């Protein structure tokens, strides 16, 4: 997908009146089997796209990079982690196509946001000879917004997530 716009994600600390010092966006199940691309993260900027400025004022929070495998060069099932039988005696390294988890620090942008919930927009971009352009290579399972308490703060128990399938 080129863009993903989440439902409002509760900022757990804000909802409970807790203090927090830092925040991360966790992106689970990121596919890296295709081309390389970058995903730009925006807070409360649901119409963000490849042209949106990368500034806190525009809601830009950070990015992550996917160094992609470029496709499958083997035979059937070559890049399917589920095609491998594994048990306690399997000493092979993990299958290289297992989806990854990415972490983006979003503290600064989240501090700028208002209210107890924010919308997260993910914009996939790939470099070309004509500069960056939208990419449909991005696939993932879930995004999760997590806040962390600092010294003297109270650590919230709940961490809301949003499925990319919904």
């Amino acid at each position, binding site marked *: 997908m080129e863009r993903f716009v989440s439902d409002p994600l509760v900022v757990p600390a804000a909802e409970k009146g807790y203090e927090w010092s830092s925040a991360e966006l966790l992106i689970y199940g990121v596919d*890296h089997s295709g*081309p*390389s691309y*970058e995903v730009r993260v925006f807070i409360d900027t649901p119409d963000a796209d490849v042209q949106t400025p990368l500034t806190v004022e525009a809601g830009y929070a950070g990015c*992550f*990079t*996917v*160094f*992609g*495998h*470029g*496709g*499958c*060069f*083997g035979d059937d099932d070559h890049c399917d982690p589920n095609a491998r039988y594994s048990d306690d005696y399997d*000493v092979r*390294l*993990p299958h*290289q196509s*297992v989806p*990854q988890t*990415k*972490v983006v620090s979003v503290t600064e942008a989240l501090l700028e946001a208002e209210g107890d919930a924010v919308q997260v927009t993910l914009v996939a*971009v790939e*470099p*070309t*000879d004509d*500069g*960056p352009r939208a990419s449909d290579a991005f696939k993932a399972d879930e995004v999760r917004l997590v806040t962390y308490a600092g010294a003297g703060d109270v650590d919230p128990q709940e961490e809301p997530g949003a499925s990319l399938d919904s």
Partner: protein
Amino acid sequence: MMRRRDADERSYARFAGLHGLPLPVECQHGTPLFLPWHRAFLFFFERAMRDRVPTATLAWWNWATPDEQRGTVPRLFGDQSVGSASNPLFSAPVSQRALQQGEAGGQPAPGPSTVRRPGNSGRRLPRASEVRDLVETRDFRTFNARLEEMHGQVHMWSGGHMQLIPFSGFDPIFWAHHSMVDRLWRLWQIRHNAPGPPRELWDQALPPFPMTVAQTLDVTLLGYDYASSTASQPVA
């Protein structure tokens, strides 16, 4: 090494191909083995270099860039020629088998010899301040993930073959880029007086290299280190 035949296990093409094409793709990304595997990779590549020139060493590309700059490719790798000769660090040929497998798999290489498109990602190289913050990261898993992300940004910034796992190892600047990554792990180890990878990984082998994670932890036992500074003067 570039002059050796591709089938020779000491050739540049053989080492370059270990990272991506031709199959099998051996590199480790997105796991705690990212740093140990690439350190083993650099070690055996440098051994092969020394088979040709015993004093040869890998150089690191310090891509940490001042805030006011966007970064450039060092002239050592960016100049097309050295005197009247072509610069072998500017571009290198991709092996025929890698090219053929890329075509067959629907991901053709950007060209039969490596090219770069620095800055096409629209981004800049990592800031020096970001690199300093990175080394200060206490938790190794966080450091590992942040360093791998920074490493990916440099691949993307470089463009061309460098932004593609199947072909990036063929670009001569790949080795300098990964030497910088390896150097930052070394700086982290010194800063925090710790090896990094968790103990349960130490006995893990790093195929295709005859080395375990434990054997990668101390670069001085591998016969190298990263200089903090140098000073030299020609002797007339």
